[in-house]
């Protein structure tokens, strides 16, 4: 890695900022379009409809009478200062809600990604090397199962077998009160992470297998063999790196889904993550929470696409990150 490419990476990273601003404007704007005034959700209807109630004074006090762009800048400024506002439903500071939820989600997502990339890629390589053998067919069948069986079903089966029948793992939750040891945390994490990773494992396995088989038909593989290289070197040095390029892109673009869309897994395992919080916020019309969560998911998505660019650039010298 030379100085030039480091500069390119930095440039690419800085270009995320305008994207983020754009997204924040869209999110803020979309919320302005929603019907009703946020205050009307907080004030009892009897009070709101009484003749003595002065809605405008409240709006003024809350800063809702200011022009939209002023409100936007105020919102952004507050976010930057770490003042994320308060939940309309519980009145709790959003920062406090995120303080426990965000790490829980990240923990689960990272473990899911780790499990699926290790198993998905390894099995994919194995299936490609042993193409059209029993092993290949077995891996393919398993991956189709993993992709097609819904997560909640997998989760319930997992809990039934490993928690209820065998009693090896807890049925749900993240922590045990008063016991913060690594062992208990890990025990709670295993089932949800495996279930979350299964579908992605299947997808990555299929993708790795296909990509590797495609690469193995390329002429440069024949060149590698014509040098007298061992099959191991042909696969691991010449084929694998080329095959990995599309796989990392797929992996990166699945990350946002794991962070924002793990509602099902969270509810099956009682995992206190962002998904459940988002669901509650949407159904309770808790707009400040929705906005912040949307911003976080958008941010993760941007980071993921940056990572996809970065990995592609590191793996493939033909890609110039500037373009």
């Amino acid at each position, binding site marked *: 890695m030379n100085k030039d490419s480091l500069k390119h990476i930095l440039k690419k990273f800085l270009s995320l900022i305008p994207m983020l601003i754009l997204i924040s404007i869209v999110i803020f704007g979309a919320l302005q379009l929603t019907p009703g005034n946020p205050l009307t959700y907080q004030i009892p209807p009897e009070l709101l409809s009484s003749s003595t109630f002065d809605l405008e004074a409240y709006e003024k006090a809350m800063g809702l009478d200011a022009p939209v762009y002023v409100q936007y800048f105020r919102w952004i400024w507050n976010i930057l200062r770490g003042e994320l506002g308060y939940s309309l439903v519980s009145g709790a500071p959003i920062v406090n809600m995120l303080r426990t939820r965000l790490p829980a989600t990240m923990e689960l997502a990272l473990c899911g990604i780790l499990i699926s990339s290790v198993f998905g890629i390894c099995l994919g390589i194995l299936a490609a090397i042993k193409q059209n053998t029993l092993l290949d067919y077995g891996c393919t069948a398993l991956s189709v199962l993993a992709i097609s069986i819904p997560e909640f079903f997998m989760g319930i089966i997992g809990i039934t077998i490993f928690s209820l029948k065998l009693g090896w793992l807890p049925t749900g939750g993240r922590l045990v009160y008063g016991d913060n040891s690594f062992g208990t945390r890990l025990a709670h994490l295993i089932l949800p992470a495996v279930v979350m990773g299964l579908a992605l494992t299947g997808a990555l396995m299929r993708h790795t297998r296909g990509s590797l088989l495609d690469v193995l038909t390329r002429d*440069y593989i*024949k*060149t590698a063999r*014509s*040098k*007298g290289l*061992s099959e191991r070197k042909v696969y691991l040095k010449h084929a694998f790196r*080329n095959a990995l390029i599309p796989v990392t892109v797929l992996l990166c673009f699945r990350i946002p889904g794991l962070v924002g869309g793990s509602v099902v897994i969270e509810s099956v395992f009682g995992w206190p993550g962002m998904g459940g919080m988002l669901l509650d916020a949407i159904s309770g019309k808790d707009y400040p929470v929705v906005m912040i969560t949307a911003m976080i998911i958008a941010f993760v998505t941007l980071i993921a696409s940056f990572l996809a660019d970065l990995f592609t650039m590191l793996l*493939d*010298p033909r890609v110039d990150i500037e373009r």
Partner: protein
Amino acid sequence: MKDDIILQVENLHTGFLVDNVPLEAVSGVSFSLKAGRVLGVVGESGCGKSVTAHSIMQLLPKYGRITEGSITYTRATGEKIEIQKLRRTGNQMRQIRGKEISMIFQDPMSSLNPVYPIGDQIAENIREHEKVTKREALDRARKLLEDLEIPSAAERLGDYPHQFSGGMKQRVMIAIAMACNPRILIADEPTTALDVTIQAQIIALMKKLQREHGTSIMMITHNMGLVAEMADEIAVMYMGRIVEYGSIRQVMKSPAHPYTQGLLKAVPVLGMKKDRLYSIKGSTPSLVDRPAGCEFASRCEYATEACRQVPRAVEVEPGHQVRCWNYKEATDNG
């Protein structure tokens, strides 16, 4: 050492399993490559020239198999190795591949790994077969590139294939093939994918290397001009068989097989006063329903009843063989 046979191919049959049906792409090919000589193998696309080359290197695709015959390689020590008996990915085959017999492929655009610098790709071949440090190997790679007249070779070692033009990539491929100073170089249509001007340069470079190192070359091509320029001997292939085989003078001067005659007539000559270039009528039959008897009969103007039987190789003159029932008529009229 001259005229010592270094590679002897005897009655080679190579087939592929297509939808579990075996198809024979090479049906009984025999030829020999002499030390320090160039053998040209000509024929149109799909005639089995590449399959023959890949059989020698044991680089056939998964479903390709040598079903009959032998490929005997004679080492510098005089030891004879029957290549078809070696395991494809086994140690012995790997020691020969790239070190003693190496190969250049048709399309230089796709023959280099896009994700590694070309210096590493050349050095890799050296490091696979010889105990040298990476630095020494890279230094030899640089020398090879200089021999192949690549400008500022030292700086270009770190460049990636996409930073090279087609002709330059083919030079890199030649550098990889020549890296361990092999005794046999198989060039599978090395200039087909290149511009005409670049073709001439590549051929000149190959001739230079051949002179300097005394490498035996098996040159596969459908370019008659190229064969005439480089080869000492020529084998003309049609539908998986060698239909004519002899020294370049014998075959070019008095081609005996109607197919060879057709190929030679189809070469445009400067100042030619014809409106249309000659072409052999019809097209190559499919391997799936191979005609019985002589496969060229349906396209041949000299075809007779006798051509329903597969012709045997006949010696026209010493060292000049032809596989045709009616070669006498063909020679007289052609």
